[in-house]
């Protein structure tokens, strides 16, 4: 009993670290542009496929392939936002959100058109699980979580110490004031989208490494991403990380007493509970 408890805690922590990346991406974009961009699901998938091309077709190792996932997903996210969603934003957050669902459908089907529905695998060495005090720990999962942590630290350093990060925080804090100080909102939107969806792309590939790669890879974790973002506080950067660990561990514990197919429904339950008792999430809506 205690062993399965600890096992769930370990698995949940590792899963939470991976989930934190798309959740950070979602909240980074929300903090700057002030609407939920649902296209994050297919952009995570696009990142996973870009990484697959680098890893399987070009023979690159996983960390290098993750860089490709970041670049392609970030570029695709920033370009599609500028093309399709920016013109909708003056009509309100809801219009942009609806547009992003349509964009998600478009991108998901573009991937399906090109790659088909059959699941694919990456070209990675398979390791035997480590056994520590009766708990099985997968080296691949540990490496994934480690890579996710590196990406998270990079984002914090970017936001905290660079001029770009300062600009993004200024817009998140007060967009009108930032604009009056000469910060170009379109440029900040490009940066926030590139960084946010780039992280989603890395997250998508890490999820695909652990599960499977097909056009719905990102969509399957969408509910968990929402849950992490809302539990932590919509638009909050530290909140996304905290929310991801809460949701990751919660989903893993749920498998102790629920059918594993319902693990993503736990995220939805977490959303309802948090909105009922702490509507602004654990960390509130302040970005940073």
């Amino acid at each position, binding site marked *: 009993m205690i062993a399965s408890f600890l096992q769930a805690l370990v698995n949940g922590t590792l899963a939470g670290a991976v989930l934190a990346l798309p959740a950070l991406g979602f909240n980074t974009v*929300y903090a700057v542009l002030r*609407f*939920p961009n*649902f296209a994050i699901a297919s952009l995570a998938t696009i990142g996973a496929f870009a990484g697959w091309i680098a890893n399987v077709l070009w023979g690159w190792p996983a960390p290098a392939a993750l860089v490709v996932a970041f670049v392609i997903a970030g570029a695709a996210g920033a370009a599609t936002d500028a093309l*399709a969603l920016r*013109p*909708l934003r003056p*009509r309100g*957050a*809801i*219009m942009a*959100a*609806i*547009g992003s*669902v*349509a*964009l*998600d*459908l*478009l991108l998901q*089907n*573009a991937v*399906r*058109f090109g790659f*088909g*529905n059959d699941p694919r695998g990456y070209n990675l060495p398979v390791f035997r699980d480590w056994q520590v005090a009766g708990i099985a720990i997968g080296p691949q999962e540990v490496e994934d979580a480690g890579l996710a942590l590196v990406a998270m630290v990079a984002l914090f350093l970017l936001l905290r110490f660079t001029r770009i990060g300062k600009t993004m925080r200024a817009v998140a804090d007060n967009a009108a004031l930032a604009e009056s100080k000469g910060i170009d909102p379109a440029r900040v939107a490009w940066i926030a989208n590139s960084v946010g969806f780039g992280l989603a792309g890395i997250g998508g590939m890490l999820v695909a490494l652990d599960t499977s790669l097909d056009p719905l890879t990102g969509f399957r974790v*969408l*509910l968990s991403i*929402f*849950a992490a*973002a*809302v539990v932590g506080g*919509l638009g909050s950067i530290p909140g996304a990380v905290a929310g991801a660990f809460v949701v990751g561990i919660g989903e893993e514990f749920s498998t102790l007493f629920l*059918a594993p*197919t*319902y693990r*993503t*429904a736990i*995220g*939805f339950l977490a*959303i*309802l509970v948090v*909105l*009922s008792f702490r*509507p602004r999430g654990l960390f509130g809506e302040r970005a940073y």
Partner: protein
Amino acid sequence: MVDYLASLAVFAGLYALLGLGLNLVWGLGGMVNLGLAGFFAIGAYTSALAALHLHFPLVAAALSAMLLAAASGALLAVVTARLKGDYLAIVTLGFAEVIQLIASNEIWLTNGTDGLSAIPAPGRGALSPLGFDLASAGIVWVVAAAAAAALGRLSAAPYGRVLRAIREDEMVARVAGKNVLSFKISAFAASAAVMGLAGSLYATYDGYVAPDSFDVLVTLLVVLAVTAGGVGRMQGALLGGVLVVALSEGTRFLGGLLPGLSALQMASLRQGVIGLFLLLLLRLRPEGLLPERMRVHPLNDQGGKIR
């Protein structure tokens, strides 16, 4: 050919009905519902199960479908009513996913991904297949027209005026002494009930329900119907239902233009076109073909434009 058109007419009427539900809550109340496929599914499954296991007649099955859909709509509205619309968008989208998950996994109740079949419908045995399609199209369109008329009345009534006031400025409505929360919850529940009714008619007509009929594509098609017809205009949803079916059937003919595609590529092209079409529509003609007519006070007339 006639039976094909008759079955298209049924689906156009169902989309119109779903569009009316969305128009009530989004067009009038300014609250988005990206999980309407979930309410549609609740209506379809409730009605199917009531007819299959409890032998409810059509009207009783439809009423129970509306009731359950309304109750779940009210629950979601209660949780999100005090928050910004973003939360409602996220929660409703997630809700539809969870409903699909439950429909796929609670095999004892829903028969899982195999779906429920042989759902009884009055007249299916007595009429020829064509006669059944035509009768169904007639019933669905009578229901849709009645719902459009009723919601049109509601929208002109004080209730609709308050909803529009909440949409434009919640604070003003509150200052005017309106209980914003209860208006939001009741509108959301009523709209979910209309969607549940559409689900019940769908299950009865089709005789078969399965989880994959209730994915996010349905939601997008209905958003497309409402946007095309005109957000806030009830007749617009009727027009929108017809347009959406024409569009999604029209994309079938893309195959003739682009030979050499696999069936899967064709299917993804069709879905992609629908996403693209909605994006273009939101961009180029967001007020729809039948824009909402706003009465503007003469002292505040800026050309009668709505923002």
